[in-house]
């Protein structure tokens, strides 16, 4: 789609969240990815991504939330085509639409994917502290990742990189530093600069702010939002910090134990969570002037190598009924743009 049509949408985002766009940039359907290991006769299968479908529209920030080990990282790695044993994709498809160019991640040649990467699709990894090659200067990372996409001569390319860094309020001197010479926040900013220097249509960001203190965190978030606004890309943003989601994302998906359990416009999800797990996540958010006992979720997080039968949340769910133990709830539309996988949700909100 032409970028111009999206232009007026930017101010619309200021007040509330933008409408979901009609043509999605990313369509994920029926995705299933397991870690399969075998060692000294012990076979293990961790179902980290189990039958997940969703889409992300152009110029949209899609948030992904869920407790630790719920499979967020595995899901977006699978979306990005970053599969390495013991992880295996068993079924499903991931299709991007980069301004008319359709790329199906699991049906394309590796060359096609390599060509796409960084030019159209970039990734900010979880634990970005260690994503830069420790024995080479930062400039080499920019050259390795971006040079071939930008298609200029080297001095010109370095100028572009420098301008880009300055736009993100980073001093070009970082290019001559080794990663260990930069602070954690600095490294994080450099990684974001690296992920955006080619102005990709799609950015996948895995907890880019989790390890940072609040001030630095806000800076990094502002920077990410600025970049997104400027180059008008779509973002999948992963964090288990619900407050960040509330401020940043247009739509929100909630994962529990390898499954997507609820999805909707951020405002809707926060206002009227349908799934008991979502309700819990939101209820445990600290609020100003609202001193409620933050009750923790009872029970232990599920073991994905041997997940509970039926609804995976049932051992910890206050609303669990008989059917929940026997059958897995399907994802159903509870209202336009709002889906949930819960038997109880059919009868009302989970609050």
């Amino acid at each position, binding site marked *: 789609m032409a970028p111009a049509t999206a232009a007026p949408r930017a101010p619309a985002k200021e007040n509330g969240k933008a409408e979901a766009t009609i043509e999605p940039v990313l369509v994920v359907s029926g995705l299933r990815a397991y870690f399969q*290991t075998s*060692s*000294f*006769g*012990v076979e*293990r299968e*961790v179902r980290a991504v189990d039958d997940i479908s969703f889409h992300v529209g152009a110029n949209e920030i899609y948030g992904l939330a869920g407790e630790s080990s719920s499979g967020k990282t595995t899901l977006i790695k699978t979306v990005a085509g970053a599969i390495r044993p*013991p992880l295996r994709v068993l079924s499903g498809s991931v299709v991007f639409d980069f301004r008319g160019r359709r790329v199906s991640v699991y049906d394309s040649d590796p060359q096609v994917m390599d060509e796409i990467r960084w030019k159209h699709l970039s990734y900010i990894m979880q634990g970005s502290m260690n994503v830069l090659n420790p024995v080479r200067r930062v400039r080499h990372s920019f050259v390795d990742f971006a040079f071939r996409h930008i298609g200029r001569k080297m001095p010109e390319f370095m100028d572009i990189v420098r301008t880009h860094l300055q736009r993100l309020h980073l001093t070009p001197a970082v290019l001559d530093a080794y990663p260990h010479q930069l602070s954690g926040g600095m490294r994080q900013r450099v990684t974001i600069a690296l992920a955006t220097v080619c102005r990709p249509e799609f950015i996948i960001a895995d907890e880019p702010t989790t390890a940072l203190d609040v001030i630095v965190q806000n800076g990094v978030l502002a920077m990410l939002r600025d970049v997104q606004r400027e180059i008008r890309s779509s973002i999948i943003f992963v964090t288990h910090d619900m407050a960040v989601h509330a401020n940043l994302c247009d739509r929100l998906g909630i994962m529990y134990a390898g499954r997507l359990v609820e999805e909707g416009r951020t405002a809707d999800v926060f206002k009227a969570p349908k799934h008991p797990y979502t309700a819990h996540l939101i209820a445990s958010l600290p609020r100003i002037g609202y001193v409620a006992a933050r009750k923790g979720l009872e029970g232990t997080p599920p*073991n994905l*190598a*041997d997940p509970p039968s039926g609804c995976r949340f049932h051992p910890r769910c206050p609303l669990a009924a008989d059917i929940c133990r026997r059958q897995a709830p399907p994802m159903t539309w509870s209202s336009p743009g709002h889906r949930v996988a819960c038997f109880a949700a059919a009868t009302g909100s989970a609050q």
Partner: protein
Amino acid sequence: MSRVLRDLFRYNREFAIGIVLLAFVLLISAASFVSPYPPNDSFVVPPDLPPSWPYILGTTSRGQDVFWLLTFAIRNTLLFGFTVALLSRILSLVIGLVAGYAGGLVDRVLMSINDTFIVIPLFPILVLFYFVMRDRMSWALLALAMSCLGWAYDARLIRSVAMSLRTREFTETSIFSGMSMRQILVEEHLPYVLPIVFSTTMNNINWSIGLEVTLSVLGFTDINTPTIGVLIYWANQHTALVAGVWWWILFPVMLVIITFVGLFLLAVSMNEYIDPRSRLSRVGG
């Protein structure tokens, strides 16, 4: 422990092969106890016979039966390896555990000394040792000297495990409950480093046997105690290869190679088993 061994045997090809090879070698050395000839008697059988019944591995130019001589030689060689390994284990355990536990200056000093022993070329020193000892050189003395020189590499490995233990919770608990350093090291830390001690033992035996064979072949040991190296030494003295008595050389060399490969495979498979990453995928689930 027995479950671990069974798992290893069943699922790790290296371990299985290593065990079989070592069992074979041990069997041969056990045969020395039923040998019809004492090891140091010569001209008890006709000399220079090629392998044939009843001298299945032939006879030497000194009138000894190669097979029975070999049983004594491999027994002494193994015993030598075990002795050095045992003695040097004590040194490397003490130094590794203390350095890892104490950290700081103690660690730095101990590891500097440690690295020194890793770097120094030991062979010329052992040769010098033989040179001043000459006829007084004995099997036991050599074992002692090699234990004093050969502990360093393993002490470093043990230290790295001990260092990771220091930060664990149970160490803190033990400190607060008033255990002494000796108690903590022996009762709490020792069990955790035993697996790595086990695998380094195999490598250390290999190392000491290798040096022993080399020194003996050159005649730089007590050449009257039959070991694999001493056997080859006498064969060389009688120019066995030129004289065509190849079986006098070939069989000892083969047997000692089997020993090396067996011990090495055990060490490798043990390391793989200890490796935390492969262990992680085994437990849980």
